[in-house]
């Protein structure tokens, strides 16, 4: 499974990778340091598109929100399931990303065990169901 994370925080990228390594599912994790880097990768010729894209909202140069809007505008990218991966869990952010077409919202947990559980849940999700039914109530993923 090909997974991609866009996050400017080095520590968070580290936790993210560690968590996936600990999960007993075969995954390849690719990361981008900010929004610009992410969009360059996604638009690059011949680059493998991720099965799931994890998107931090607060990033320099280009925010996660801007990336989300760009991706949903592009025909070859708009089908990629997008999981928002943010420190904030403000109503406003959740509402906005939901409206713009994100599939799931994850608040970065403060426990490694929880992080592993959340990520495991996300990659095990039935994305066809999650993308077609767009459910506001189950949008914010919590354990």
């Amino acid at each position, binding site marked *: 499974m090909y997974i991609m994370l866009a996050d400017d925080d080095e520590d968070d990228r580290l*936790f993210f990778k560690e968590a996936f390594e600990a999960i007993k599912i075969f995954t390849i994790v690719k990361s981008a340091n900010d929004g610009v880097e992410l969009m360059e990768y996604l638009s690059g010729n011949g680059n493998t598109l991720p099965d799931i894209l994890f998107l931090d909202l607060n990033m320099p140069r280009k925010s996660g929100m801007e990336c989300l809007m760009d991706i949903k505008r592009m025909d070859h990218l708009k089908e990629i399931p997008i999981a928002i991966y943010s420190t904030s869990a403000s109503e406003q952010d959740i509402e906005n990303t939901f409206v713009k077409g994100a599939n799931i919202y994850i608040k970065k*947990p*403060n426990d490694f065990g929880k*992080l592993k559980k959340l990520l495991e849940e996300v990659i095990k999700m039935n994305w066809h169901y999650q993308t077609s039914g767009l459910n506001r109530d189950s949008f914010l993923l919590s354990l």
Partner: protein
Amino acid sequence: MNIRSALSVSFLLRLVFIMAMFMLLFIIGISFKHTDSLSKSSEFLVHSYKIQLELEQLLSTIKDAESGQRGFIINNDSIFLKPYKNGLKKVNVLFESLKGMTASQVQQRANLEDLRHLINMRFTYLTNSLALISVAGGNQLLGENMLKGNAKMDSIRLQINKMADLEISSFKKHQEKYNKEISFTPLITLLMLLFSVLVFILAFIKINKDLTVLKNSNEKLLISTESIKHAEKIGEFCTSIWDLKTNKIFFSDNLYRLLGCEPHSFEPTLENYLKFVHPEDRKIVGVKIEDILDKHSTYPRYYRIIRKDGQERYFKAVGKFIAEDSENNMHLNVMEDITKQHWNSLNLKERNRELEQSNKELAYFNQVASHDLQEPLRKIQTIISIIKEREFTNMTETGMDYFIRIQTSVSRMRKLIDDLLLFSRTNKIDKTFEQSDLNLILNNTLLELSALIEEKNAVIQSDQLPLLKVIPFQINQLFQNLLSNSLKYSKPDIAPVIKVEYERILADDYPALKINANKIYGKITLTDNGIGFEQHYAEQIFDVFKRLHTFSKYQGTGIGLSICKKIVENHSGYIFAEGKPGIGAVFTIFLPAE
């Protein structure tokens, strides 16, 4: 005083005077007529006597002529014939005079003609008698002739008497008519005079009364004028009245004063007023005053005035058309010196701006304190959990102990930050008040706390709660904080019992409720049987971070009750705490119920 009624009074008076005037004129007319007829009557009398006199004279002239002839016959002296000769001439003169006098009297005139005829005949006899004297032997004829003459003389006397009688009777008739008139008019004149006097007296009384009213209203007017003058002085405002008909403007005394001038020290014209208006603001005043005529100019308007001494003042002007009659032809302007208010409002704005600024800073601080502090904290916690999972077993006993202490402290710090964030978010802005059933809210809270309630084996009894206009989730938070507070500070060996009671009350009955717009409150009390607290802490427990117990005994951040207070204050309500150590605590909430 009503102008209209004053006008009608003067109209009435005018009418009365005109009536009286006409009566007087009438009386004058009657008097004139009366006098005129009096003089006519006396003329008539004189005329009548004159005729009688002339007639008498005529008779005596004939008699003279007759007796003269007799004397001549007896004495045969021609001197006796003189009256006879003169008599004929005199008779002619008298006749002419009588003819003139009786020109207008038809009957008398006819009588006169008859008389003339008789007299002529008489004279013919006389003449015949004279002729017979000189004829011898005519004594017989003379005697006959004289007898005939005497008979004629009797006829003449009769005729004269007839004429005199006619004069007397016509005079009597005239006198009767005159008397009739004269006896009638004095009564009318007297009545008219009396009536006129009455009218004048009534008019005088009325005038007197009106004068008293006028005097009183004048006094009132004077008082009100004076008080307006004082009011203008005290209230720092002034007025101008613009008469559109005459295009004249009146300025009140205080207008001059507010411009820094002596009252009436310059001509009250628009041009002179504009001289005091700040050059940049002249357009506002100038243009707008011309706009007055179209009656759509906007009020109030604000402009600056530069006083005579150079001081800049701020004016607020309002204007209105006042109706003098059916047409609006007076424009009243009221100008107020609002310099003080202007600066006050500027200060207020400045302070408001500062407050907004400080609020923004506070919000930013909150953001930093909660959000940005959470970021590294989250990482610390994550790393702690990674270490605990992977490296914990490699640690020594002491290392493990310290490590656990680190974890506890970090957790507590997170709790503090979370609560602080919750506290700072608990405000009124952007929250909508809805009519809500507090029973539903309480049930929801109980559901949320069900695990804790079960764990503590607690009993919660509640009255029927009301429908109130509140921010529902904040009230939920309020119930949650208070109930969990009671559950937390319960006695370890006794199952907690919490009573929720409700009562609708009047603010007047509770001095602790400061006077404000709300009169009726919903009073909700939560009574528990927990450990209670010393009453002197009753106010402090609502302060942020205030704790009465050590953390190890009762965990908490000391923010929960602060949030309660904030929520209640958001609802313009009050919250009070009452504690008895070892017995329990009572929290009383007052929420506006109108």
